[in-house]
């Protein structure tokens, strides 16, 4: 391919003919040639493993379809093949996948927010106010983070209901159901710890109600409350504590449980059968 185009260029230069080649077409063939050369390079072949749709000479064959999954770090969460009914949107309603996708969206938008936020009682609220008014796309990203969090609670909840009504919690999936319940709890905790961070009236009083409730834990009530608040009263210590829980600890824990959850879906025989 590259050689043929090289000949074409040579002819065009050498002929000095009256018919000048179309510059657009020339640029296009040049681009194609360069793309071809890039795809044929050692670098390209080393990045895209066999079966990748970006690799030179990709053809749609059962073998390559399998390679797409097996040879990709992201996709190999999936098996190469799944039961036909498991692909149906009407069966899963995409709820589990959407919960995971919302988690990814929340991570991305959350990292963006972290650049503009200091978790101290003196700075937190004004940082958010500044983010909304002075940072490009700041308000937009904060909105997305907030609404995605609510959507994630809803989608995890609906996913649980879907799984229950399909009887998919039954053996051999009973342990994965337990993992799922833990994931639901972690989702609620992530949402609630994020609630305090803007340090506005909404945050303060919601957390006051919540931590007071936790203070009634039998036997260890006051200790639990102290651990949650980082002091006897809600303040800067609480804010720092909930911030670390929100951006580091709970995401870390939930990722581990999600890994187990997804792994067990496959080990327990994929999605449960049709009703």
């Amino acid at each position, binding site marked *: 391919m590259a050689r043929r185009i090289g000949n074409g260029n040579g002819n065009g230069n050498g002929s000095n003919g009256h018919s000048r080649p179309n510059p657009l077409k020339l640029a296009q063939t040049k681009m194609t040639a360069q793309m071809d050369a890039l795809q044929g390079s050692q670098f390209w072949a080393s990045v895209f493993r066999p079966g990748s749709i970006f690799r030179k000479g990709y053809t749609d064959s059962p073998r390559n379809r399998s390679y797409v999954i097996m040879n990709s770090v992201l996709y190999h969460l999936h098996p190469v093949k799944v*039961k036909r009914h*498991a*692909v149906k949107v009407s069966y899963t309603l995409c709820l589990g996948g959407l919960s995971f996708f919302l988690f990814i969206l929340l991570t991305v938008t959350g990292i963006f927010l972290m650049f503009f936020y200091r978790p101290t009682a003196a700075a937190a609220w004004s940082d958010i106010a500044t983010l909304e008014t002075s940072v490009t796309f700041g*308000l937009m990203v904060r*909105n997305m983070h907030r609404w995605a969090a609510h959507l994630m609670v809803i989608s995890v909840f609906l996913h649980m209901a879907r799984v229950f009504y399909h009887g998919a919690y039954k053996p051999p999936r009973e*342990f994965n159901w337990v993992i799922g319940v833990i994931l639901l709890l972690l989702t609620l905790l992530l949402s609630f710890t994020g609630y305090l961070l803007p340090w*506005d009236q909404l945050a303060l009083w919601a957390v006051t109600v919540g931590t007071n409730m936790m203070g009634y834990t039998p036997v260890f009530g006051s200790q639990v409350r102290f651990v949650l608040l980082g002091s006897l009263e809600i303040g800067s210590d609480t804010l720092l504590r909930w911030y670390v829980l929100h951006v580091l600890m709970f995401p870390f824990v939930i990722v581990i449980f999600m890994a187990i959850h997804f792994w067990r879906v496959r080990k327990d025989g994929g999605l449960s059968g049709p009703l």
Partner: protein
Amino acid sequence: MAEVPEHLLERSRERRAALEGGGAAPPGDAGGSAGDDGDRIPGALLTGQVATAPAATAVATAPQSIAAAGPAGHTQRLLTVVKAGSIQDVKATPSDKVHVWPHLLVGELVASMAMTAFLLVFSAFVNAPLLALANFNQTPNPSKAPWYFLGLQELLTMFHPMVAGVTVPGVALVALGMAGYVDKNPSHKPEDRKFAIAMMTMFLMFWAVLVIIGSFFRGEGFNFILPWQQGVHEIFDL
């Protein structure tokens, strides 16, 4: 049906003839005596009365009419005849499977794109709340929890905080987690699972009703109101 060696069949016939001559046939042998075209294992073989062991004691206890060895001097005996297909499934059950790429990945891509688009549009029009700076001296009235905890806040008005805030959610979560171990019904069909479905639906409705009451029927001081009389007081915080 597996071939039964000829000498064993012959031995069985001899044995049967001997028993019929003697009078009493063993009960297991009754059905297999007539009109049986080799589909049944001769009863004598199964009852284990055919002594073939080389040991002298075994031969001594066995009826004398039966030869201790086969025609070619065989000393083995038939333990059982297994029909083909009775323990192994010869035909593999066909499974209806599709490739993840493209059938599943395309769906996932579309779903994630749709969700992103929805979030972008929604976030462009609806702003996340940011109230006034936190103030310890000014309690908002009513002070409501985020919607997913409104059920708990509602319980808090009825029970002791330890019950509403710790016991009920704790028991609910543990009970939920144990569903797969408690429910012994193996069926996945809704018509066989009426009890489980009723329980779960009641569980979900319980929280839904509490959240709705907390959202629409609670006014100042978290007192019960009727929204069509007093109007909706700050539904819930998002």
